[in-house]
């Protein structure tokens, strides 16, 4: 690489740096401001440094019941993550063969991805309302509603995470060497053994990636949840509600905590992916190393 960089490189590098600053700058502003002193306001300058606002969030004073919303979002996120991984891997395997409705499923997934969220959200809300009406008319007088975090809410989140999972699976299997499975079959492996001992270990790093998308997209989901989770709120919904009422930095503290969870998940997922890839390189091929 002794070739000299063209002048355009420096211009574009500067542009890219400015973009990264644009991406991260504002976020870091609120992370810093969440450590605002007790008398500090919503803007710079910092009026001392304290953990007062984090304390407010944890004790729940002056702010809606954040602890409960936190727990709900976490539970929902984990459930969405598991379902996204399982359903995407399963459907990804299916798409390697041709099956009836493959094209249809593909287009439905794309449509679900780009459908304006408010429409999906409204549709699910209507569906559950009509279902409730139907159940009540059928004689269940005490019935309240089927709508809830783990019914309509879960479904709404899956319409958002599954398309991402499916597209990642497509990317994985576009590069997958089918001869590995043939080799496994020739050695007498059952389809399940082939999947468990050959396919899964190879695709595992990317599957962790699907899990990362599943959790983070659900953890931060707002538009599709807005009409579909019934009487309780998820964390992003509470945060959105607070934007119009809160005038103190506790909203920043909450934002910092929410981001901390995101970063923790992203960081762990990336570490796991790196470890798995390193493991794969170590165990990957013993060709030319003699019999083990």
């Amino acid at each position, binding site marked *: 690489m002794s070739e000299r960089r063209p002048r*355009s490189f420096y211009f574009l590098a500067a542009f890219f740096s400015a973009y990264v600053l644009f991406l991260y700058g*504002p976020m870091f502003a609120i992370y810093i401001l969440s450590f605002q002193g007790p008398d500090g306001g919503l803007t710079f300058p910092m009026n001392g440094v304290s953990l007062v606002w984090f304390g407010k969030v944890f004790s729940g004073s002056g702010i809606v019941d954040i602890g409960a919303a936190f727990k709900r979002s976490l539970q929902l996120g984990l459930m969405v993550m598991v379902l996204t991984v399982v359903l995407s891997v399963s459907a990804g395997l299916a798409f*390697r063969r041709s*099956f009836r409705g493959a094209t249809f499923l593909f287009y439905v997934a794309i449509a679900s991805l780009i459908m304006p969220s*408010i429409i999906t959200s*409204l549709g699910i809300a209507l569906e559950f309302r009509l279902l409730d009406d139907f159940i009540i008319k059928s004689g269940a007088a005490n019935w309240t509603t089927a709508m809830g975090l783990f019914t309509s809410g879960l479904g709404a989140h899956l319409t958002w995470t599954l398309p991402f999972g499916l597209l990642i699976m497509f990317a994985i299997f576009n590069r997958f060497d089918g001869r590995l499975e043939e080799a496994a079959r020739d050695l007498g492996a059952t389809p399940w053994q082939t999947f468990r001992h050959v396919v899964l270990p190879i695709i595992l790093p990317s599957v962790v990636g699907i899990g990362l998308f599943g959790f983070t997209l659900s953890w931060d989901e707002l538009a599709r949840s807005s009409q579909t989770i019934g009487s309780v709120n998820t964390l992003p919904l509470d945060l959105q509600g607070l934007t119009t009422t809160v005038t103190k930095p506790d909203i920043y503290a909450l934002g910092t905590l929410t981001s901390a969870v995101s970063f923790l998940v992203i960081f762990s997922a990336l570490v796991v992916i790196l470890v798995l890839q390193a493991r794969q390189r170590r165990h990957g091929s013993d060709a030319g190393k003699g019999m083990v």
Partner: protein
Amino acid sequence: MTQDRKTFVAWLQAAPMMLVFALFFLLPLLFVTIVSAWDYNEYEMIPAFSLRGYTDTFEGCIADLPNLCTILKTYLNTLKLCLLTWGLTLLIGFTVAYFLAFHVRSKTWQIVLTLLCTIPFWTSNVIRMIAWIPLLGRNGLVNRGLEGAGLIKQPLEWLLFSEFSVVLALVHLFTFFMVVPIFNSMIRIDKRLIEAAYDAGASGWQTLVNVIIPLTKPGIVIGSIFVITIVMGDFVTIGVMGGQQIASAGKIIESRLNALQFPAAAANAVILLGVTILIISALTRIVDIRKEL
């Protein structure tokens, strides 16, 4: 295994995902369409055919001519925000993707820098919106800075809770959706084509316009579809960054829902869907999405 059994297994593997989409996407869309043609009163929907949802929406559109009625004004405004956001995300997204694809030479750096652009996508949109408050507010950094430099006497009011801040936040949030597909198209361009253009005497600019942009078109179209559909239906960003004062296609639906006028909300959803489909079908005429994955 016989061929039939293999196909059956594949079908079984795809069935759970199909079921989720059927229950939580296709069926809901069907209900939206049906309910949009129902009657309603102040507090509930009435399952009888009526086009009130639509007629209420377009109320005054003919009577008020030549002035535009509310719904048309709102849609024009949404389109304006949409075009602004699209233009800016395309410009920024293309430049960033170009840098990553053609100027970053080592694979490791490419991954690290791409990841750097991706991480904010995995964090909360609401937080990335409120993050602008300390910068753009009346006492924010920008106003303080400008006042300090003696450029302005009074704080600028249009920085926050305005169309400016809405577009700024939309660009901030969604440029990622442009970068990824454009980058994906760019790294698949055969580098020899660029060398050939260079050897044939093309300048850097000519190579960009005549070789790279045409070959990147699929990525540009896919990114555009993402950004346009998101902005057309957006009500959260426009709500938070517009101080709940700016009307948009998505916000009409939200306010109808808050008023429990479900058929009216559904009618608006159908209209929004129609407009979105029109835009997408115009865009997909340019490129076949399935081929690009």
